[in-house]
């Protein structure tokens, strides 16, 4: 293969002889060799391209760039011997990159980042409030016109997010209840306080753990599904299509989902709490050496209806907020698949955060009213 580039400086002026293939495969080599020839003011350069076999836009651009750099330094540049086959591409390329490239904006600016985060938080709060309002309005209009309630889709949703979630929720809460009891027996038995394991397990499960575990699982399982569903509908303009048909996407898509969550979460919480107590009971008889009647007896004494209510009152509220966050994130999706992924993640993260915050607020509230 012919040399890509040879040059000599005889007789006043640089003479460059090009050869071989000036194509993308050799672009890096050509660029390096050309870079060694630093432009000189007032010089004369002639480039002989007759030996170049193939020229593509990479080669043509490197040639043009070289010509421009020397010309800008005040040299006279002549390009000779372009073959008829290579002339059109060079002509095309000599038209491009005329405008100076604007420098890219700095990507990481700590202050800008913090500001953007705060304004995003503000926007989140506003859209959250708007969504809550829209859903409450939709519920209100459903009460006035019960015919508008979408029974079929609600039943199918309940099947998906309530009934089909039962096995996994029972399994996980059962195991957590069992683990709690085992840990309790292991440590409490040192003080001879085996009986109080039942108090601790009952308390924790009824008031806090039952609802928390179920809510976190529902946020991960159902909240993400809602966001992904609504998000992909938004991406494919299905939601816009609904709007143009004079139908309100909040009434049709969002209100049933949230309503079903509000109903399903207490049901799942109840099932989950029972499973956890059962797990604790099994461990108590097998590992703690406590007879089943004794366990149940002790549970009766430790737990009151109040404890049960504390857990159950929280459930629908938490369900409502998981639904609002999930649907809100779904509608915030726009454009790309990456956006869908980001909002689905956001939905789960925000829901779980919200679950914990709500639980803390409830804890303060219930202790204030003495429940």
């Amino acid at each position: 293969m012919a040399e890509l580039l040879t040059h000599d400086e005889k007789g006043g002026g640089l003479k460059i002889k090009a050869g071989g293939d000036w194509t993308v495969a050799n672009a890096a080599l050509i660029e390096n060799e050309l870079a060694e020839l630093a432009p000189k003011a007032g010089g004369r350069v002639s480039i002989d391209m007759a030996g170049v076999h193939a020229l593509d836009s990479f080669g043509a651009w490197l040639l043009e760039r070289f010509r421009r750099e020397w010309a800008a330094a005040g040299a006279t540049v002549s390009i000779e011997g372009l073959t008829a086959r290579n002339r059109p591409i060079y002509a095309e390329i000599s038209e491009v990159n005329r405008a100076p490239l604007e420098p890219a904006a700095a990507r990481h600016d700590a202050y800008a980042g913090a500001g953007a985060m705060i304004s995003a938080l503000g926007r989140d709060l506003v859209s959250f409030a708007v969504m809550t309002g829209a859903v409450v309005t939709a519920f209100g209009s459903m009460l006035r016109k019960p015919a508008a309630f979408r029974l079929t889709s609600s039943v199918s949703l309940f099947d998906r997010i309530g009934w089909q979630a039962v096995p996994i929720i029972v399994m996980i809460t059962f195991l957590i209840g069992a683990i709690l009891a085992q840990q309790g027996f292991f440590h409490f038995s040192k003080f001879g306080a085996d009986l109080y394991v039942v108090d601790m397990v009952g308390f924790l499960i009824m008031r806090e753990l039952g609802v928390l575990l179920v809510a976190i699982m529902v946020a991960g399982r159902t909240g993400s599904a809602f966001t992904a569903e609504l998000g992909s509908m938004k991406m494919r303009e299905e939601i816009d299509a609904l709007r143009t048909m004079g139908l309100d996407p909040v009434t049709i898509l969002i209100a049933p989902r949230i309503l079903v969550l509000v109903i399903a979460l207490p049901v799942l919480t109840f099932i989950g709490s029972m499973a956890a107590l059962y797990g604790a009971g099994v461990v108590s008889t097998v590992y703690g050496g406590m007879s089943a009647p004794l366990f149940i007896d002790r549970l009766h004494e430790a737990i009151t209806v109040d404890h049960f209510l504390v857990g159950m009152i929280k459930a629908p509220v938490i369900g409502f907020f998981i639904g609002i966050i999930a649907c809100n994130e779904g509608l915030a999706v726009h454009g790309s698949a990456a956006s869908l992924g980001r909002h689905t993640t956001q939905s789960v993260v925000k829901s779980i955060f919200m679950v914990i915050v709500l639980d803390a607020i409830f804890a303060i509230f219930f202790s204030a009213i003495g429940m």
Partner: protein
Amino acid sequence: MKEPQPVVHIRDLTVGFGPRNVLDGLSMDVRRGEILGVVGGSGGGKSVLLRTIIGLIPKRAGTIELFGFDTDTLEGEALRAVQRRWGVMFQHGALFSSLTVRQNLQFQMREALHLSDRLKDEMATARLEMVGLKAADGGKMPSELSGGMTKRVALARALALDPEFVLLDEPTSGLDPIAAGDFDELIKTLQSTLGLTVFLVTHDLESLYAVCDRVAVLAEGKVVAQGGIEEVLASPHPWVQEYFRGKRGKMLAAKNTSRGGSAARAKRKDQAGLG
């Protein structure tokens, strides 16, 4: 004169899904330096043919030769070398949605070659300008582009590594007539300046008249007519007659023959190519 080696050489190609053969014993050539338009009914296998050529759909029988290499024998590095010689523009652009336009254009340069950042940036801008966009469009995300811009960026990406052979899947679908006309013009210009061979799947009769040197009509899993547009028009096959002599086809044919326009030009070129 001996005919130069075709870029694509297909013989007795059969491709099917389940019990149905979409392509059934299809044979065709794409000659170096031509724009071959492929037309056919919806679901007639045009896109399937394109996807089979580039290896996305397995074939049941027959041979495909690309640049003289049998695709069955190509693998590993040899296959990648052939893949680098073609560029594909998908119907909906298939731009990577998580990358900016500039990054989309630079993707192959980054993966396949070791080029300086400066050269990559300059080439990305050059590509954008070649397809009629501005350097500033390089910073946009694909989701921010209009339909016409998406098509242009997709074409620019197909050209990223200066391929000699470009496959375009319905490049003008979804564009308004003006934008589609501009796009036809663009394909024609780029084809002649870059010396490309183009395989153009289209529904757009206007495109056929405006840019194609040769037309191949797909029906019943075979090429039922091919050649310059007038040869194809002369074909007795009923589908061809309906397609070109239907209401819309007639209107265009009248317009183009009265102008003595591209149809005749295509024909002349075709004969020159054969002679």
